[in-house]
């Protein structure tokens, strides 16, 4: 068994299994937690519009803090959108999703994927640099932050190296790329990357609570 077979075979099987186990464990565990009883009189009959409103409003810089947060939020948007384009727009990636779920959608030309990948890498490097330079951010950061950054950066970087055939033979680079994706999948449910699944749940819960209490969103 060569490295590529090892990556495409047992490594991905185990990574998918750990990902699925971890995701359902954490999501079910959180969603089934007991809610605190709210004895107050509800100000609005339905609370879900508040959930949607808060999800949207918290995804945009607050006017009062825009000068301080615009740079970080812009960077965040850049690499998140870049990741979405690369992960869901590249034909070989779509084949993986199709194999797992049966779902299929049109792919993007490789030039767009390569450009998005390069921009994403650049943005991720700036994000790391900012975290290291900014005194408050550095103080707040722990292993989870840096390792989550690494497992996000590695698949993009190795994927770009693979398509560019830089540093090693293609099959080796492809194997390393798949191994880095496996590492991402294994870490995903247990680190801060889980925000991808929980961010809208937490914002929605807060928004629904605000709506019920009649708070402005």
């Amino acid at each position, binding site marked *: 068994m060569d490295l590529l*077979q090892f990556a495409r075979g047992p490594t991905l099987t185990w990574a998918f299994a750990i990902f699925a186990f971890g995701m359902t464990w954490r999501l079910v565990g959180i969603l089934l937690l007991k809610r605190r009883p709210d004895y107050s009189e509800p100000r609005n009959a339905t609370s879900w519009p508040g959930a949607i409103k808060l999800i949207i409003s918290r995804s945009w810089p607050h006017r009062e803090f825009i000068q301080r947060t615009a740079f970080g939020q812009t960077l965040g948007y850049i690499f998140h959108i870049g990741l979405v384009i690369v992960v869901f727009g590249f034909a070989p990636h779509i084949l*993986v999703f199709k*194999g797992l779920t049966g779902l299929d959608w049109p792919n993007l030309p490789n030039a767009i994927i390569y450009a998005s990948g390069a921009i994403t890498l650049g943005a991720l490097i700036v994000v790391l640099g900012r975290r290291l330079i900014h005194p408050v951010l550095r103080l707040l950061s722990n292993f989870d932050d840096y390792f989550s950054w690494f497992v996000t950066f590695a698949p993009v970087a190795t994927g770009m190296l693979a398509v560019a055939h830089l540093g090693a033979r293609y099959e080796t680079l492809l194997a390393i790329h798949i191994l880095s994706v496996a590492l991402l999948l294994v870490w995903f449910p247990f680190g801060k990357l889980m925000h991808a699944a929980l961010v809208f749940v937490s914002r929605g819960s807060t928004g629904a609570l605000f709506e019920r209490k009649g708070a402005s969103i």
Partner: protein
Amino acid sequence: MNEPDTLGASLARTGISRRSFLKFCTAMASLMALPPSAAYAMADALNRAQRQSVIWLSFQECTGCVESLTRSFDPTLEQLIFEMISLDYQETLQAASGEAAESAREQAMKASYGKYLLIVDGSIPTKDGGVYSTVAGVSNHDLLVEAARGAAAIVAVGTCSSFGGIPHANPNPTGAVSVADLIRDKPIMNVPGCPPIPSVIAGVLAYFVTYGKLPELDHLGRPKVFFADTIHDRCYRRPFYEQGKFAKTFDDEGARNGWCLYELGCKGPTTYNACATIKWNGGVSFPIESGHGCLGCSEPDFWDKGSFYKPLAVPLADNTPTITAAALGGAAVGTVAAVISRTHQTHIGEEK
């Protein structure tokens, strides 16, 4: 067996002009990415060279390699390669049979001991004393060891002799191995492919006769001049890959328009060979041009690397049952964790 003879004299007798000969040498030099001056050096060396004694042993194989070579050479100038060499033993091509054939091999080995080129096609069975393939009652293993002893170099033609090939595929019932698995003390060049490209054989033989050594090899013992690039790198369908245009089935509009066959399982990105540049049948076509994805036949264990029709990016196994089981397990553990947490929350509430 042929008498020692210079190649120039042999060519003159068969009516090959110097112009045709130079054209052949130029083509060979160009094929191997040698500088233009190498064509003249090659012509000069070949002209003065004695015909290289070659002994060709066939083991566990389908004769596809020999079929490919013989059919594709005729009637091109590459057929000359058989004029350059003295093919002293080849079971399929020789007229002699039985004891006369074996005697010819033994005489050739004795006459050119330490100088002959040994070509091998087919893998070598090692299980149960090698009984699964024998020639004149002698196992392939013993034949190879005996012939290798007096060889100047060994060329393993085809994937079976290079890497074990299909006989080596799981579960490998005959214990098939490659030439390099058994012979360690001779220069060995692998020319894999199922079958290999005839021009590649012609090129490396011309190189050996000219320079008296094997060309530069890659980490798998393949001549770099022919195996440095992937099929994908040189494929005429590559622009469609970059444009994101893929054939979805073998007969859809994309396939008819020559779009990339990646989604149909083409192994071109991980296969190193010269099919896309030299092509087959005198440069007419190659498998991808004929509408089928590359099988990766010049790579080790190509038969055991998953389905030929599964894209390279896709996991080898069907992971759906594993993922479902893991998700159910995760949900169960999550539910237990939530129940414990709820019980704990209730206790805290009661204490307050």
